[in-house]
């Protein structure tokens, strides 16, 4: 669920909605030029790096210098190494050696391709941009920029028959400064909003990783001015290329003349387009659709490979540099080799094994995130001898020992005498070891630390206190060690305090008590619980059709095999082929079953004319040193694969689901996976209905769904369609949770 304002949320729920908007932006990039262009030699600083200037570079890491009005004092810039540093330099793009005030500066970009046309160029100069500069191509075409006031400069000008560009800079915003270039894009960004006639965004994700997630977007643009006609030489459509990126934003006019609140719809890849005299249609897809590179490097590792490392390797092979992997994957291991599958399927298998869901974020970032309610543990920085801090996570009646703390001990007979020796204490909650002073403040504030098994977000926490109340609470959340948020509770603190606040993704929460309401008291906490995972209810008012309930086939049991790879099979000929090779030729052969212990023969005898240069359980790469025609064979052993089953029984009747994940090599993980899959199948009811359209909903969101027979029914939305036609509408497919 995307974050939205209260005004947005309330207005979207009202019977009459305000106006909806859409905005599309996509770059018309000449991808061949983008891939092959290089910056020519020039008078650059020693820390200049031009390798990634034509890549997808959004950060502007910058070394602090003494240039005029350049160095910020917020600690965001970096100290330049003296040049002898072992770690080298950060990639800060290109920086001219001399100040532009000392003389004009030129640089040459060689496209390194045959003469080509491209429409527009976009250059990111950073905060200190040039005011006056020219861009000239090798055909003598010059585009002059005068009085520029933008850090990211773009032009729609078509550069024709171009093999190189020369950029000449005359004046900077701050004259006594260097020129910096962080990125160059051969093309420019197009932004459409009023031209959009309609659009459909269809998103699907399997909550248990049964399929690859899928997003399809279709937009129809007005073409009355024939701007998108193929025959129009200035038409943007002539410069569209498969694989170009498109950003979709949805807007909603806040009531009473408020601003338009924009929500990012998604970041997608263009796949097809077409046009006629009235409209142009562009279709886009998710980032997984083209992730078809085969992963064949699977290798058995008796010591275990972390799922995190495995995912990083697959993403590297798939050419994905921006991703988010749940840090929990670092502590989960597999011994088994990953079979030969496409990279996207490999990621899906990893996500499933770790009870995660594979998705792309709305920024187009591949992510694998835990998809289960994590268990939590709690600890304190000091508790009384009779305190049981771990018990506060259990919602039961807690005993309280009478003490002489100010105003603490009640005289209704409900409190208990503290034994002199605590052999077997009563079921108490958390009681701090620290006692507040006369001013109700502690020398060291009591802090409870709640650690979750996986990163998760919650809409609030609940605290049930004993007979002593704190005077202040500060809550800090951390995500893998980094502070996410510090929230000071400003509401009145009562015996049963519910803090309604959105705590974004975190794995650790610290609850610090800054004082007690009465002096000379301890903190007494009997119960702690996280709030809800959703604050959205799909009411009948949000639906435009009656929800169709679909009862799924009943599942009796879920079986998850745990695979163990064992040696002991006899050696056999794995590959046998007549090959004709030249000296130095390398060949890679792929195997159908996981194998090991390779050796090669030529014409049935071992030979030094061939050697194995690389291998895994599913491939062998060999190098031939002598030309000729040979009967080539690879000998080796196939693994014996033994299965053990983790079984979760749901009911007496129904079908059996056997969930085979080849990476599962640990019976504990198999049991966890079986429980997770069983949870999914235990409900077995799905709902389909049309809605008024909510751009803030993500697939895999858990929401409440109004139901006349079940109060507070939670569902997971796994397919969502959002239509835009000057207003929103949509369609939802959701699966019931919790039986």
């Amino acid at each position: 669920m995307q974050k939205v304002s209260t005004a947005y949320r309330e207005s979207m729920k009202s019977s009459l909605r305000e106006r909806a908007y859409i905005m599309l932006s996509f770059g018309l990039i000449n991808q061949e030029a983008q891939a092959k262009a290089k910056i020519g030699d020039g008078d650059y600083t020693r820390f200049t790096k031009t390798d990634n200037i034509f890549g997808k570079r959004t950060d502007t890491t910058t070394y602090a210098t003494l240039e005029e009005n350049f160095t910020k004092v917020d600690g965001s810039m970096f100290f330049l190494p003296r040049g002898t540093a072992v770690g080298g330099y950060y990639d800060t793009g290109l920086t001219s050696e001399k100040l532009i005030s000392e003389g004009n500066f030129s640089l040459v970009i060689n496209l390194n391709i045959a003469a080509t046309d491209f429409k527009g160029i976009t250059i990111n100069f950073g905060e200190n941009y040039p005011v006056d500069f020219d861009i000239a191509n090798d055909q003598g075409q010059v585009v002059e920029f005068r009085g520029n006031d933008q850090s990211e400069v773009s032009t729609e000008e078509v550069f024709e028959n171009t093999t190189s560009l020369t950029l000449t800079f005359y004046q900077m915003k701050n004259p006594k400064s260097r020129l910096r270039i962080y990125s160059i894009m051969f093309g420019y960004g197009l932004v459409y909003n009023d031209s959009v006639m309609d659009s459909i965004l269809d998103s699907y994700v399997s909550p248990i990783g049964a399929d690859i997630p899928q997003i399809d977007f279709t937009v129809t643009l007005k073409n009355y001015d024939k701007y998108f006609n193929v025959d129009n030489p200035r038409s943007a459509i002539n410069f569209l290329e498969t694989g170009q990126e498109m950003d979709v934003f949805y807007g909603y006019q806040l009531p009473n003349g408020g601003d338009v609140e924009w929500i990012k719809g998604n970041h997608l890849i263009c796949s097809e387009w077409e046009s006629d005299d009235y409209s142009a249609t562009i279709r886009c897809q998710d980032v997984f659709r083209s992730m078809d590179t085969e992963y064949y490097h699977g290798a058995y590792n008796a010591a275990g490979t972390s799922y995190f490392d495995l995912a990083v390797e697959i993403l590297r092979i798939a050419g994905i540099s921006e991703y988010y992997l749940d840090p929990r994957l670092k502590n989960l291991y597999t011994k088994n080799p990953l079979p030969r599958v496409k990279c996207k399927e490999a990621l899906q298998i990893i996500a499933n094994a770790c009870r995660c869901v594979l998705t792309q974020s709305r920024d187009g970032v591949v992510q694998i995130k835990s998809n289960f309610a994590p268990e939590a543990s709690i600890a304190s920085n000091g508790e009384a001898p009779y305190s049981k801090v771990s018990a506060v996570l259990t919602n039961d009646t807690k005993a309280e020992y009478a003490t002489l703390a100010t105003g603490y001990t009640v005289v209704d007979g409900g409190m208990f005498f503290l034994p002199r020796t605590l052999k077997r204490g009563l079921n108490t909650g958390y009681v701090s070891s620290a006692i507040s002073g006369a001013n109700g403040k502690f020398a060291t504030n009591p802090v409870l630390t709640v650690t979750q098994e996986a990163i998760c977000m919650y809409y609030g926490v609940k605290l049930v206190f004993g007979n002593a109340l704190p005077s202040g609470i500060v809550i800090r959340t951390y995500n893998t060690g980094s502070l996410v948020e510090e929230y000071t509770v400003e509401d009145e603190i009562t015996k049963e305090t519910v803090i309604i606040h959105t705590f974004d993704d975190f794995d650790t929460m610290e609850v610090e008590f800054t004082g007690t309401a009465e002096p000379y008291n301890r903190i007494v906490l009997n119960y702690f619980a996280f709030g809800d995972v959703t604050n959205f209810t799909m009411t009948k008012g949000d639906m435009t059709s009656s929800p169709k309930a679909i009862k799924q086939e009943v599942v009796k049991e879920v079986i998850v095999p745990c695979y163990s790879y064992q040696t002991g099979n006899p050696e056999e000929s794995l590959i046998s082929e007549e090959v004709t090779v030249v000296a130095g030729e390398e060949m890679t052969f792929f195997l159908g079953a996981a194998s090991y212990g390779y050796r090669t023969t030529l014409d049935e005898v071992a030979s030094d004319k061939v050697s194995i240069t690389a291998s895994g359980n599913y491939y062998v790469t060999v190098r031939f040193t002598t030309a000729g025609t040979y009967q080539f064979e690879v000998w080796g052993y196939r693994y014996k694969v033994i299965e053990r089953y983790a079984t979760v029984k749901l009911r007496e009747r129904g079908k059996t689901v056997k969930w085979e994940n080849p990476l599962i090599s640990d019976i504990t993980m198999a049991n966890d996976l079986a429980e997770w899959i069983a949870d999914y199948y235990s409900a077995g009811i799905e709902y389909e209905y049309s809605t008024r359209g909510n751009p803030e909903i993500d697939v895999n969101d858990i929401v409440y769904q109004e139901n006349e027979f079940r109060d507070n029914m939670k569902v997971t939305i796994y397919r969502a369609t959002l239509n835009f036609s000057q207003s929103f509408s949509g369609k939802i497919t959701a699966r019931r949770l919790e039986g």
Partner: protein
Amino acid sequence: MWQTPKTDWYGAVDANGVYSGDRFNADDFNRIKNNLDCLRDLAVTIYDEFGIVSLGADRTAKDYFYADEINQLEANLNTINANTLKQSYGATPTYVENGNTMDFMELNRLEGAILDLYDKISNQIKGRRMFQWNFGIKGGF
């Protein structure tokens, strides 16, 4: 030449992520460097002789500055303080190559400490001058 230290450094980013705070220029580097030299010269007029490490000639806009130079400015301040009033000016950060540069709070602490030492040592000097001994005057003091 002593220049009044800047003690109102601030750095801020607006709602759009645009930086709107102060910028650290060559003049600022030179002021801190030279003020520390002035402060040492002032201090040794009433305290035992001691030295600080020179950071060389004034910088210009085309020069770079390095982590070890800012560390040296901090060290020079500590040397002067240790040889004079031994005040407490908070923890001294250590900057490293490729590490984040100082923020406005550290600059305020550094220049605030320089100004504070300068004022206090100046007062000591002025105080000594104002205390006069009178010998042989009838009627006493």
